[in-house]
């Protein structure tokens, strides 16, 4: 995915006083993780236990939390 522009990071930290560089890094990491597994051809054909799905769902929830904090203008 396209790297985030340095001026965007600076703007977020300036305009969102509660935001931290670590949270921007966490947000970016969660976005990148979405693309790291094949959504159409999973390596294991067996049903995935719900416990293994939980981290992804938690990741999406965390992404939305971070979006509200860091990039509120992108909320649709």
């Amino acid at each position, binding site marked *: 995915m*396209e*790297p985030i522009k340095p001026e965007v990071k600076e703007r977020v930290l300036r305009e969102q006083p509660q935001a931290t560089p670590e949270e921007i*890094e966490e947000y970016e990491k969660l976005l990148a993780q979405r693309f790291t597994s*094949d*959504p159409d051809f999973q*390596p294991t054909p067996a049903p995935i236990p719900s416990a293994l799905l939980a981290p992804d769902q938690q990741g999406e929830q965390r992404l939305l939390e971070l979006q509200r904090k860091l*990039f509120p203008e992108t909320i*649709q």
Partner: protein
Amino acid sequence: MTASPVIRVIRPGDTSKLNPYTVAIVANPALEVPWQSGAFSPDPIMLDHLAFEESVNYIEQALFGSLPGQREQFINDPTIGPHIRVVSVFDVGLTATYQNSLVAQDGASNQLIARRSVFVPFLSTYNLDADVIYAVSKSATHTRATSWFTSDDDARPGIPFAMDGRPLVHRFYNLIPGTVAIHTTNRSLIALHEFGHAASSYTNGAVFDLYIDLGPSINKKLNRPIPVVYGNYNSAVMSSDRTRGGIGYPPTWMTYHCELLDAAFPGVMDDYLRAASHVPEDCQHDRITRQFLIDRLRAKISRP
């Protein structure tokens, strides 16, 4: 209004083959808003053919190394470039439906996301196959490009290789091509960076972003301290990158990269916007990424 569809062959590629390595660049007929919602609306790109053609020109330049000052030239090699077909599709005659929507707007960011499973049936209506597909959007709100790796057809042949003794294969064919969602405003190394992802493979080597502490993959490893040797690719021993072209590794990171071809600049898959020269086009791929992509392209170019 433009007659539809407009299909242009930008580069003919290897005309002796029925299925030459192909990069397709398609105007996105419809946006899914937001991603995975099932709600579709026309993409503004369909009202701006000129902006689409400018994106086509830009993508072709970035891939073939002809951006002003661009140093990364691996595709512009006589054994690779002339064999690659580039085709563009602009079709204003399509409605905003599930099957015509190639790009979604992410609900959690300003990212454009390729709706990858739709691409093959969509292109088949034009009798086109591709290895990597760019879908160009002119979304009013979402401008950040993203890519999915290729889903290789691992049931079909290819050219074997080894990474650190692990047997892998540069497959000739795919089940789902590498897919890129890109915006009309995207320029500089974005198209080349996204090609690095899209041309790589879920099962035979994925090229990750180097600016995020996420791995391992073909171009990312995990360890501290950073070892001297990065790895062994097809009997070639490659060193580790200790400086990230001057960016440095954050102290909390566990991932590290392969040696750079020019240690003065970060890699194309890294945060090239932080190049000391402030000129992204100074950046080149690191050694493993470049060799992996060259070998993968040559394998596909050689397919029967």
